[in-house]
């Protein structure tokens, strides 16, 4: 099954990417996955251009195709100013609005302190609910101190198991379909001539 990770970490190495990798590895222990990682940092300029010119450049288009074709998604963002980062949100702003419909998504976030952990519930979960994704019940937040404490590994395992269980149910991308014209016209109550 195809698992796509979207990481909005900015530094190299990044604790956001580290959390994303841990989550992906945990999913891989539950079900065989074909993994693809989308690093938004590398797409930052193309994402900005998508806003100004209305279409995705090659790298961004490839990332969008990967996301649209995934059986499951892991999305991880650093917390910026009490929410997801602008880059993270921008990637989903320029994604097709139906691309995530019905798709299982595991949400994660990182921050300097645990005081921001509810960003997952107050910012990320509503965003993905709006996009009609199926967000797994366990969201994983990693503060700096979590990397040296107990508990994070268990949360990662639980969230990964939840995502792995939902991935076989992901809708398969259908070909572009359109309502046959006569049907479309009939819905308006007019005869086709």
């Amino acid at each position, binding site marked *: 099954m195809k698992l796509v990770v979207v990481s909005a970490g900015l530094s190299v190495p990044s604790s956001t990417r580290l959390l994303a990798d841990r989550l992906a590895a945990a999913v891989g222990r539950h079900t065989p996955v074909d993994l693809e990682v989308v690093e938004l940092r590398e797409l930052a300029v193309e994402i900005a251009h998508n806003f100004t010119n209305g279409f995705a450049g090659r790298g961004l288009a490839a990332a969008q195709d990967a996301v649209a074709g995934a059986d499951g998604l892991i999305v991880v963002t650093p917390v910026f100013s009490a929410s997801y980062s602008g880059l993270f949100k921008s990637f989903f702003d320029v994604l097709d609005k139906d691309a995530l419909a019905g798709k299982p998504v595991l949400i994660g976030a990182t921050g300097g302190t645990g005081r921001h952990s509810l960003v997952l519930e107050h910012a990320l979960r509503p965003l993905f609910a709006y996009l009609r994704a199926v967000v797994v019940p366990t969201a994983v937040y990693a503060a700096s101190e979590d990397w040296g404490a107990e508990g994070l590994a268990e949360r990662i395992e639980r969230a990964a198991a939840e995502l792995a269980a939902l991935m076989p149910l992901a809708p398969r991308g259908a070909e572009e379909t359109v309502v046959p014209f*006569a049907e479309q016209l009939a819905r308006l*109550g007019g005869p086709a001539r």
Partner: protein
Amino acid sequence: MQFGIFTVGDVTPDPTTGRTPTERERIKAMVAIASKAEEVGLDVFATGEHHNPPFVPSSPTTMLGYIAARTENLILSTSTTLITTNDPVKIAEDYAMLQHLADGRVDLMMGRGNTGPVYPWFGQDIREGINLAIENYALLRRLWREDVVDWEGKFRTPLQGFTSTPRPLDGVPPFVWHGSIRSPEIAEQAAYYGDGFFHNNIFWPADHTKRMVEFYRKRYAHYGHGTPEQAIVGLGGQVFMRRNSQDAVREFRPYFDNAPVYGHGPSLEDFTEQTPLTVGSPQQVIEKTLSFREYAGDYQRQLFLMDHAGLPLKTVLEQLDMLGEEVVPVLREEFAKGRPADVPEAPTHQSLLAGAEKEVVA
């Protein structure tokens, strides 16, 4: 194959001088550009229809009627006519009138407009955009084809015993193209009626245009109008030329960088690489335009955007000289090579009239 130009009619400051033309200057410039198009041997002039600044062409048939009086051969068209928010009765009347004045040198391209508020400004609901395009066009077709129409629909007051006047010239309605960038429903509509499909193309990567055109061709054949290769396809293009390609890039860059729509975004280099925009020598324009056939198949109409982003009239007229004298003759010759004999030309009033007469005889 037909070659021409389409204009958005934007009033944009020239970024190199800071001067903004007056509306009068811009409107007169559009007329001068259309006259030049005829002079240099182009086939089509199409004007946009907009109802918001910084655009001037809110009244296309007024402008096209004036141009019709000053030209002999040019086909006058639109890019696009708002089938969503105009009353289809008024479209039927206005363009039939234009047909008579222009001796049949008229076709139209249907579209849905470039700005959301145009719907409420004209008393419509943007969420019904596709449905408006479908219902209004179905009525427009009847108004042109049936002398007396009884009609009832969802969006307009009913008609009883209505006759749209004048009747289309020679009883032949203008040929219609449907323009859409991303809505397969519109490609489906074009295919259903056997109408033309125009992809604006200019702000989009080739693979996107290819998917839409392929879909239209497939559905055109599905509805029994011919083979997919015989479907009637038009494409946009956008060029800026100088003899020496470095000069073209240097001169066009400030216009590109400050253009409405894509200005302040990607670099000129990225944009020319990813979209049909060509900034360079006439030879480069020829090569790029010929490459459209690789993804769109043999097609019928190529329109170029030449006069936006504040380019001065003098420059635009120079561009049209080059387009008409150096580029289009080569394109005509090259596009004709290897073009299957059963791929039709774009319908014109004469060809539609001949077809109708043949039908009567048979």
